[in-house]
């Protein structure tokens, strides 16, 4: 199954990936990153590999694998 990785330290918590994930597989993380920003986290479930999250990410913090 496709999956994504999110670089927590690069994530600025804009949540645009959450807005556009068709499967609802990204959520805000419970913990802050080193910059004190609330990053997002991949839930690890049903991912179609559509790349929407990575395409909209302004910080190139998401990689997609298939």
């Amino acid at each position: 199954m496709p999956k994504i990785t999110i670089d927590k330290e690069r994530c600025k918590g804009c949540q645009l990936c959450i807005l556009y994930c068709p499967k609802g597989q990204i959520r805000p993380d419970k913990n802050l990153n080193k910059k004190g920003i609330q990053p997002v986290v991949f839930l690890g479930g049903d991912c179609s590999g559509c790349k929407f999250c990575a395409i909209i990410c302004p910080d190139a913090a998401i990689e997609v694998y298939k």
Partner: protein
Amino acid sequence: MDKIFGRPKSLRDIPTHYCSGCGHGIAHRLISEVVDELDIRERIIGVAPIGCAVIAYDYWDFDCCEAAHGRALAVATGIKRVRPEAIVFTYQGDGDLVAIGCAETIHAANRGENLTTVFINNAVYGMTGGQMAPTTLLNQKTATTPFGRDAKSAGYPLKISELLAQLSGVYYVERVSTDSPVKVLAAKRAIKQAFINQIEGKGFSLVEILSACPTYLGMKPTAAVKWVREEMTKEFPLGKIK
């Protein structure tokens, strides 16, 4: 498992200084992707603006040159004329390209300089603290239009792309947006086209990107992209203009 999406080679592996949800990061990445795909990294010379993207050259892994505020297309003209084999582009915001550099923009376009311009329109000044841009919408509140932009005293949103399309020297103008993944993909296609035009010697190409500035719109990034889609595109309709 194969990586099907990652950081392009021409985008340095460092964090940007941009605010959360800022559209600059997307535009930087798209240019890098296009540079990689067209295999022009060793031929490309970028001209960086003054504004939030002043240190865009820190993020791009290819040759770059600074320009005084608004003069990016004059600097690019100088570079391209003495190095016609190089692929030269400017990256400019609404203040740089439309206000202080309006003359340089219009005349470089009118000379039909074989250049590519990526124009980031976010309807507000970022670096200086959220003042009115020439592209600020009517009634939009900024630091210098605290009661909303009033046409009587501050004029109207300036549609530079439509204006440039009138010029004989201009080959290609398209307005795109980065408010959703589908639009981002369309924006990339337009940027790629603008570079291909230069490689083929077609003349002046400009891609206007409607981009979100959540900080100075005073919105969450998710609301800011919605504002771009619903409000900005009314004044600045998307599509190929020329």
